[in-house]
């Protein structure tokens, strides 16, 4: 490349627009008199233009980004469940079961049973804590966002993954709204149950 080795790094920095501003003007002056460096700058600029254009073609379509958030929360929810299982296992281990190697089998059986319950029956760990929190407006906003993104059908999953765990389902109007938003899912039954409890004045069901 340029015979003017002294300026090769500068030529790359200049083409990359990384040359410090203090060096820019003297280098531009140098370019006027140095054909090697001028050619080098032109060549490096061409290389960078080509790679920029080629990389710009690798754009991520909007549809690919839709499920990122939900998958992150699903992954977190699975970890929370695993943490619970590991706590159960730790309990068995620390309790010093007299059954020797049967201990591991017992823990495994409990773990399998719990996982099977999650898969077949659904959310045994989905406690009613979910409905005790605040910021109901944000729940609406997020549900609306999912609706707009066409993933309203996944509302139940969103609830299961604690995505809305900071949101309130405390008052009658909130529960009615939840029932409406969760239409077509088992969460309508949950809303009904809470509504009934609320109407009968049983505050412990909240």
């Amino acid at each position: 490349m340029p015979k003017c080795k002294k300026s090769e790094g500068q030529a790359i920095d200049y083409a990359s627009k990384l040359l410090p501003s203090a060096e820019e003007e003297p280098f531009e002056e140098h370019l006027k008199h140095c054909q090697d460096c001028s050619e080098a700058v032109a060549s490096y600029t061409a290389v960078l233009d080509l790679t920029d254009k080629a990389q710009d073609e690798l754009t991520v379509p909007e549809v690919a980004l839709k499920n990122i958030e939900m998958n992150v929360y699903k992954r977190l929810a699975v970890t929370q469940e695993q943490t619970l299982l590991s706590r159960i296992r730790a309990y068995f281990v620390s309790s010093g079961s007299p059954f020797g190697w049967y201990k591991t089998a017992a823990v495994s059986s409990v773990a399998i049973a719990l996982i099977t319950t999650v898969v077949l029956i659904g959310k045994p760990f989905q406690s009613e804590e979910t409905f005790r929190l605040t910021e109901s407006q944000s729940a609406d906003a997020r549900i609306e966002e999912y609706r707009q993104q066409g993933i309203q059908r996944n509302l139940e999953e969103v609830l299961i993954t604690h995505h809305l765990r900071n949101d309130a389902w405390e008052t009658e109007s909130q529960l009615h709204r939840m029932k409406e938003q969760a239409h077509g899912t088992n969460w309508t039954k949950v809303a009904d149950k809470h509504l009934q409890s609320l109407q009968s004045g049983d505050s412990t069901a909240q």
Partner: protein
Amino acid sequence: MDKLIDDEMLVAQFQAGRQNAFDELMKRYKSKIFSYLLRSVRNYEDAEDITIEVFFKAYRALEGWQPKAKFSTWLYKIASNLAIDYHRAKARHPVYALEDTEIPEARLVATDLHSDPEKQLEEKERGLLIREAVDQLSPKQKAVFMLSRYEGLQLKEVAETLDMAEGTVKIHLHRAVKRLQTLLRPLWENNEI
């Protein structure tokens, strides 16, 4: 949520228990991180999986995060480390390595129905040749080049992301550009790109 709130403020809100703050951070960065990983791993599904992993790790570590560097730099650091792990695993199990042509380009490139299909094909081939040249850079050169050139990180931020001295980043960048010139020059002299 106010878009003018800076990332570090959102992190502080998250640490104070405001879940929405993490949603906003994901919203801000999921596209950037996905694009960065797609360029690095060159496989659509893997890039998606690693993007999820990046935010999963970020969520779990964010509670104890201290603003020693920018949040975005920290996020890119997680992504870079996961990309390195991915490439290492791929090198250990080459039988599972995918060819570049297996990237579902059709899903990634916007399609103009009125454009010339032949020209589109040429463009696709050209893009492929250039990206193959970028893939031939050493892992460090490639990481520095991509973070600096495509993600718009300052050299200092690239240095923080990759745990390198700033001078080393510059050396890798110079070598990357020179290597690309060597690889691409014959192609453009032969009118292949």
